[in-house]
Structures are given as C-alpha cells and as structure tokens.
C-alpha cells in the first residue's frame, strides 16, 4: 500500500535531515547529532517492521553513495570504517524500539522511552562497539571505552524520543503506526 | 469549444452521494450529473469542497449513495481512472514524487503500462509540445514555485485524462503565475472541474455549484451564483468575529 512506502521513505528522509541539520543542539549547548534520535523515532512511531525498513532504506542509500550520515558522510567507505557497526545497527535498533512499543501496554511515552533505550541505545551500541572492536583490532571491552563519553547524551536522547513520540501520538493519533 | 473526447460523453454522476468522517457527515445527499466543459465548485473553507474532489476522484469511497465516472466506480476501478481523471492539488510539493522532471513525468506513463523507452520518448514529446525541452534533466528543486505548479500540470496532462479536477490551484501564487496558469488551463481541451473559494477563478465557467455545509446551496449559470456568493461572503465577513467554537 502506498502509505507504507511513503511513511518508510519520509522517515528515512527524517533520519537524514536530523543528521544534516547542524543547528540542533540537544542538551543545553552541547551539540550532539540528532541522527540516532531519528532512528529511535522510526521504531517508536512507525513500529518494528516499518521502522526497520525505514532505517534499512536509509542505510541502503548511504551505501549507494548519498552523503546522508551526520557530517555529510556516505558511500561504501563507511562500511569499512570503525563506525560501521552503528550504521548496520540502525535498522535493528529501530526494529527493537518498535517491537517494544508495539508489545508493551504502557503509555506511549513510557513505552517509547523504554524502546528507545533498549533499541536505540543498548542494541545500537552492541552493534557499534562490536564493529569498532573488529575494525580497530581491539577487544570488545577496549572498544566500549572509546564510546562511553557518548552514552549519557544518548540516554537523554531516549528520553526525548519518549516525549516526542508521546507528542506525535496526541497530535496525529492515526499516524503513529506503532499503536494503531 | 468542441473536442472529440470520447471519454467525456458519460461524464460524472453522483446519486444521493454522501461522505462521513468518523460518523460526522461532511457531504450529504449529492445528486449531480456533471457533463459541462468548465465546472466550478465554490464554497467556504470547510464546506466540503476538498472532500467532494476526493469523492469524484475516487480517493475516498462514498459513505452513502453512488459516484460514477463514465459508468465506473472511481474508488474501486483505480486503473480505469488513470485515463479519465487527473488531479491537480494545491501544493506542488505534496504531489511531486520524483527528484527530476523526466522521472516525474514518466511515472504516470509507466503506471499506464508503457515501458521505460516508450515513456522516455513520450516525455520528450510532451516537453517539446510545451516548449520546455530544456527541463528534461532538471532537478525539481531548481524549479521556481510557478514552474513546479506547471510540472504538476504536465504530469497530469501526460496521462491524457478526460477530466481534470483542480483543488484551489491558484492559492499562494503571485499574479503573473496566476495569469499564466489561467491561460494554460483555458487552452486545455479536457473537462475542468475547478474547486475554489475565490469567485474570480471561475468567472467564465459553464456551470457553478455552490457547496455549503456539505450540501448544494446553488447550482447553475456562473454569473448569478457568483454574485450571490460574493454578497453572502461580504455579509458574513461583516457580521461577526468568528469566535464560536464548532467542536
């Protein structure tokens, strides 16, 4: 159905926009990229399957050579670089986030926060750290030390995903496909 | 203006048609036969005009009654509608799907069954016909707002429909662009059904239907209905401050 295709495509575009728009500073002055927030929202708003496809479409287009990753990165080189784990983890993170929102019966805001936390932070970092460990030839623990600085920011992002999903559910209840 | 369009013989027929959203009636009891070449649908915002367009186009199915286009149901017979009904929405950014002009124009043609090569040729011919061959490889983002409007019109014309429905096509356009669009529309051989809240747009039309609260308030020759409509709108504008909440 057309709505599936357009929702998936528009949210893939949203991930790109949240990575490319430079003016978003997330926590009082600290400029963090909002791109993973976009990945979280794919899952929490569109649900597991569509969120997965949206993030997958995004990753696919990066592979095809579009500079959609934050910082204007893109192309096949990304998949040989240390951040490859995060990029490959995007669709799975979205899936897990969406799965949690779909299956829990908690209020949408809380469910979205939980989904964003487990999918968008825990699962994403699992993939990201593994990728980093492989490319840099370090142990998993060593690689995880490299990313600890980003974790607090991403925890806050999960909270934001909760608020935003809740807000969207109020404004466009029919469009939040994770809770039809 | 006589044209040998075999498709427009039957026309559009509504019989007791109604449309509800979540139980709330937006359009009620419409019985109309639309065969004229230039038809205007006029009404205030919220009168049901846009729902009327979607009903006739088959984008929504009627909640009551029937809607027929050339004897077919537009909501179910989508493939047949491609050559019968074309739609021009208000905002080009909500209609243009592809990033380049050629891809956008070829899309509808491929939908009709043409293969890649045929569609490409047809696009070249269409652009040449309208003196815009140099638009072929252009990115949509490089076109001005008026040019994007025209691109949407071209995309509709590429499908060669018998009838074109237009939803407030002049909204937000500057005067030169409005004039250009008016001229382009006037030259079209297709039946045009133009939905608007601005009486100037449908001044010379064959038939005007005034919709109010989802019902036909007036239906007939353009002149008198436009005069009544303009007077009523002036009266409403002076009467109150529109503070009542309707929901």
């Amino acid at each position, binding site marked *: 159905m057309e709505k599936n295709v357009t929702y998936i495509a528009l949210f893939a575009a949203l991930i790109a926009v949240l990575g490319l728009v430079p003016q978003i500073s997330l926590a009082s002055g600290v400029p963090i990229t909002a791109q993973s927030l976009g990945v979280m929202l794919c899952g929490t708003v569109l649900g597991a399957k569509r969120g997965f496809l949206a993030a997958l*479409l995004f990753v696919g287009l990066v592979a095809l050579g579009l500079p959609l990753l934050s910082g204007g990165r893109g192309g096949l080189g990304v998949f040989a670089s240390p951040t490859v784990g995060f990029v490959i983890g995007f669709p799975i993170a979205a899936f897990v986030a969406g799965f949690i929102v779909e299956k829990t019966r908690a209020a949408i805001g809380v469910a979205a926060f939980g989904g964003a936390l487990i999918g968008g932070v825990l699962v994403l970092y699992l993939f990201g750290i593994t990728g980093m460990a492989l490319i840099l030839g370090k142990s998993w623990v060593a690689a995880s030390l490299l990313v600890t600085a980003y974790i607090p920011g991403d925890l806050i992002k999960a909270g934001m995903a909760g608020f935003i999903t809740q807000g969207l559910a109020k404004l466009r209840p029919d469009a939040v496909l994770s809770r039809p | 203006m006589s044209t040998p369009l075999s498709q427009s013989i039957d026309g559009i027929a509504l019989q007791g048609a109604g449309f509800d959203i979540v139980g709330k009636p937006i359009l009620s009891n419409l019985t109309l036969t639309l065969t004229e070449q230039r038809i205007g649908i006029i009404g205030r915002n919220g009168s049901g005009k846009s729902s009327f367009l979607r009903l006739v186009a088959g984008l929504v199915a009627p909640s009551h009654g029937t809607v027929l286009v050339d004897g077919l149901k537009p909501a179910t017979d989508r493939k047949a509608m491609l050559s019968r009904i074309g739609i021009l929405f208000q905002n080009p950014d909500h209609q243009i799907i592809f990033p380049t002009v050629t891809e956008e124009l070829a899309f509808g043609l491929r939908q009709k069954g043409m293969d890649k090569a045929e569609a490409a040729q047809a696009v070249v011919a269409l652009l040449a016909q309208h003196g815009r061959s140099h638009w072929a490889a252009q990115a949509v983002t490089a076109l001005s707002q008026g040019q994007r409007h025209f691109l949407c019109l071209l995309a509709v014309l590429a499908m060669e429909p018998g009838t074109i429905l237009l939803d407030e096509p002049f909204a937000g356009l500057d005067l030169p662009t409005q004039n250009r669009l008016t001229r382009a529309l006037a030259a079209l051989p297709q039946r045009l059904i133009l939905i608007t809240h601005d009486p100037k747009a449908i001044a010379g039309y064959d038939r005007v239907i005034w919709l109010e609260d989802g019902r036909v308030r007036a239906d007939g020759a353009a002149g008198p209905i436009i005069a009544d409509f303009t007077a009523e709108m002036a009266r409403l504008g002076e009467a109150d401050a529109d503070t009542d909440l309707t929901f």
Partner: protein
Amino acid sequence: MLTLTSPFETPLHRVAAGRKLLGLAVLSIGLFALQDPWTFFLVGGLVATVYLACGLGFARFGAAMLRPLWPFLVILGLWHGWTGAWAVGLMIGGKMLVAVALANLVTMTTRLEDMIDVVERAASPLARFGLQPKMLAVAIALVIRFTPVLMDKAGQLGQAWRARSARRVNWRIVLPISLMALDDAERVAEAIRARGGI
C-alpha cells in the same frame, strides 16, 4: 540531491557498477586476510596510484573522504604507542585506510542511477515476498526528493523559533519536524494513489 560521485570523469566511471562492486568485495576480503606488511604496502601504493592516475582533483576529493578517519588513527597511534606494538598498529590503521579508500573509489566512480539499477536487479527475487521493484524505485526517489524538502522546512521552523526566542534552537524542534514528515507521508500517499498507486 548531491551524491558522492565524482564529477571528474575517470576511466573507472565506464566500468560496470556490478563488476566494480564484485571486485571491491573480493579485494576487501583479500585485504582483511592480508598479514604480510610488504604485500600490504604494495597494495596501498597501488590504490594511491590509481587515485592519482584518475586526476589530481579526484585524488584530493578522495583524500577528503578519508578525513573522518583521523580520530581513529590518533587513537590507534596512542594505543599502540603506549603498548609499543607499532607494527600491529600500523597494519590495522593502514588496512583501515586502504579498505575505506578502495570502497570510496567505487562510490566516487559510479553514478547513483547505476547503483540503483544493480540494487533493483539484485532485489528482483524478493518480489515474491511482496517487494515490488516499483515500490523500491519509488521509495528511493521519495527519500532523495524529500530530504531537501524536509531540510528546508526544518530551516523555516528554526527561523520561526528564533523569531520568538532568544535561546538557541533545541531538541523540541524535532517534534514539528517529525510532524511534517508524517503529514508529507500522508499527502504523498494520496498523490500516488491519485496517479494509479503502486
């Protein structure tokens, strides 16, 4: 929408996309398995030569695309400098650079339409799972079309924010931006249905 394909024409541009991707896959696996430093230097030198042979502008562009890797090179340098395992560090860092450079070479010499063609052909067996090739083509086109549109709207929202607040734009703007994505998705779905659906 700008892609990472280099505008400087090179002989590699004429090689078929599928062949380049296959070659990249083979070379990448080989590179990963490579242990001997001298062979590695040879390979690295070859890659650099190919870049330079394609033109100075091209090579400069290629070097710019390697820039995001420098923090990792620094980390590797510090790490291996600390432990004294220089040779290992150089190999890891070097392999990373060459692997990325090779992959970027394909990206820079292949047009987006050709890449999309490869993907569509590769995805055709998925048609039985419900993925019509038309859906994929439209989905890709929509992302390319709407990323700049959403960015413009995000920019306008930012301006509307700054017109009413002395404070910097913060995360709350993601809500209306997401709203625009949702609304655009609805309207474009309708526009597609109006033109025959997918």
